[in-house]
């Protein structure tokens, strides 16, 4: 069975061109970029090129890019660095809907004497900037607000957030793992001090990420050891992966427009058709600005894992914000923070498209999903009422 892969916010296909770019750096060009000989030196050149490519996608300077192992490492590095830089500031601000890479860290830090404010969101997943304005004070070391939400695709007004943060002199970090490559970014005209990105969400392999660190922003490394990455991140460079990330960023820059036209068009069509055909459904975050590739849709009276399993039978890969798939027993923290009604909180499904998604694949979902929901509602003691 050929898969219909609509789970690109979880991870994405490595672009063939990206793979070709990295391939020589395993068995042939395996030199250590730190070496003095030509063999390492030629790898160093490719790494420089990769750094420039990543910087170009972000509208940043190459010197502002630090390669890491993943988005989570970048997030952890940024937040811990800010706390070390400001030892007298004991307050962190984040949001209730952050990715665990940020949220778990912040919650752990409360055990070490830090005060953490988790900003609320409204029913559409939007931040209340007034709440932020009230929360940030002279004790705030860092504000970490995600660029776009992985589950709903809701995009936060990052520059407005940044303005408020800067007024109080705190550092501003954003987890942009879902945003990079999907919406245009320009660090040159931004309030962001630090930004985390992850390779495998934009068609590079897993195990490579980057941290954007604005020039002049004080920094303390998370990993110490060798002098790699200008002593900002020790450890021998993951050369092939870094080169892959560079290529992936170059391609992402070239397909930004496609993401916001063709991909968005497919997402919109999927959403529209499903909402027309299936009764008692709602788009999570529908009232907010969203990523062009993501739709989170909730169906009343059915449970997400059951939907996913039946979709999977048809080769369709999606994900759910529901409890049962993750082994947790509650709806996702994002949907709970948004106050999604309990009648459908357990029945949310996320489709996340990419530039590799085709119209035929969208057609297949529009064809296969409605009968699945109907069937589960027939089995459900609550859904039967609806069908009458």
């Amino acid at each position: 069975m050929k898969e219909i892969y609509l789970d690109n916010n979880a991870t994405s296909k490595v672009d063939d061109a990206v793979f070709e770019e990295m391939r020589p750096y395993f068995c042939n060009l395996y030199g250590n970029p730190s070496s003095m000989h030509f063999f390492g030196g030629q790898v160093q050149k490719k790494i420089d090129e990769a750094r420039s490519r990543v910087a170009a996608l972000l509208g940043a300077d190459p010197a502002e890019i630090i390669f890491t192992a993943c988005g989570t490492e970048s997030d952890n590095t940024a937040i811990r660095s800010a706390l070390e830089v400001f030892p007298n500031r004991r307050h962190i601000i984040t949001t209730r809907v952050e990715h665990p890479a940020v949220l778990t860290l912040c919650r752990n830090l409360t055990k070490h004497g830090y005060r953490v404010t988790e900003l609320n969101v409204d029913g559409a997943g939007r931040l209340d900037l007034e709440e932020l304005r009230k929360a940030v004070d002279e004790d705030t070391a860092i504000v970490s607000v995600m660029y776009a939400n992985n589950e709903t695709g809701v995009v936060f007004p990052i520059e407005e957030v940044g303005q408020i943060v800067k007024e109080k002199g705190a550092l501003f970090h954003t987890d942009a793992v879902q945003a990079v490559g999907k919406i245009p970014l320009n660090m040159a005209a931004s309030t962001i001090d630090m930004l985390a990105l992850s390779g495998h969400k934009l068609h590079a392999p897993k195990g490579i990420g980057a941290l954007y660190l604005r020039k002049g922003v004080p920094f303390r490394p998370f990993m110490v050891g060798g002098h790699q990455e200008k002593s900002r991140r020790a450890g021998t460079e993951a050369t092939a992966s870094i080169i892959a990330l560079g290529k992936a960023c170059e391609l992402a820059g070239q397909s930004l427009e496609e993401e916001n036209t063709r991909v968005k068009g497919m997402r919109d069509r999927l959403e529209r058709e499903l909402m027309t055909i299936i009764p008692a459904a709602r788009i999570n975050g529908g009232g907010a600005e969203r990523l062009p590739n993501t739709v989170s849709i909730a169906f009343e009276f059915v449970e997400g894992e059951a939907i996913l399993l039946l979709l999977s039978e048809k080769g369709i890969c999606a994900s759910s914000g529901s409890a049962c798939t993750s082994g947790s027993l509650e709806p996702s923290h994002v949907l709970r923070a948004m106050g999604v009604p309990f009648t459908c909180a357990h029945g949310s499904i996320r489709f996340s498209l990419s530039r590799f998604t085709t119209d035929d694949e969208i057609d297949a979902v529009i064809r296969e999903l409605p009968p699945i929901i109907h069937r589960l509602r027939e089995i459900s003691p609550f859904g039967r009422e609806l069908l009458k």
Partner: protein
Amino acid sequence: MWDYTDKVKEHFLNPRNVGDIPDADAVGEVGSLACGDALKLFIKLDDNKERIVDAKFQTFGCGSAIASSSALTEMIKGKTLDEALGVTNQEIADFLGGLPEEKMHCSVMGQEALEVAIAKYRGGPLPVHHDHGHDQEQEGEIVCKCFGLTDGFLKKVIAQNRLHTAEQVTHFTKAGGACGGCIPKIKELIAEVLGEQKQDAPKKPEKLTNLRKMQLIQEVLENEIRPQLWTDGGDLELIDIAGTVVQIAFRKACAGCASSGYTAKFVEQKLRDLVSDDITVEEVAQ
């Protein structure tokens, strides 16, 4: 992705006995939309009101919840009410070739719905379970507010399934899986159940055949000693019994634990107290 058995998948994809029985003799409802799963079970009895001739269900929940409901209806058809009451959640799981531990609460939900249905049919108080709504009196005190679970119900599941960690209780009942506020109380309940089991433990017998002695050693290890180690994340395995020498190997947290020598002594003392004075315990590396 869950590692579901083929039987679970098959019962999920082709659930048996979905629907309702308009003139059902007994109906049992457990769970709710807010909880994330719910089951409504319909039972029809034969003319003598003895045997179950038909059973149907409606389930809101994940794949294994639907499969467990389907399995339950298949299992109870043809049984008398008393026989049906004897069906345990483990048997439902076994019927399906096993469930991932995190999903055991699905089988518990099946057993529960059955008990509620039969209790309602027979009249009298409902078994100590979920919040059944407010129409009928219920016993016990609510321990887990998030999922509306009583102490009586939790203790029963703990005892029946020999649960020994709060995490397992969450897997089997969902208690503790939301806000987590009830976890300390769950730990108390586990300790209570372990304590009660200990009291019923057999006293040291007078004279033993060799075979009986070996059986007894195994029982004491299973019922008395391992559950205690589990509470600290440890475990042991019985390697051999040669005469009065019991060879054990420590597992999990106990393996390589600095105080394992002390633990071995504890095991020896237990076996001497409960089986025979001449037992010695040897720790072997395996």
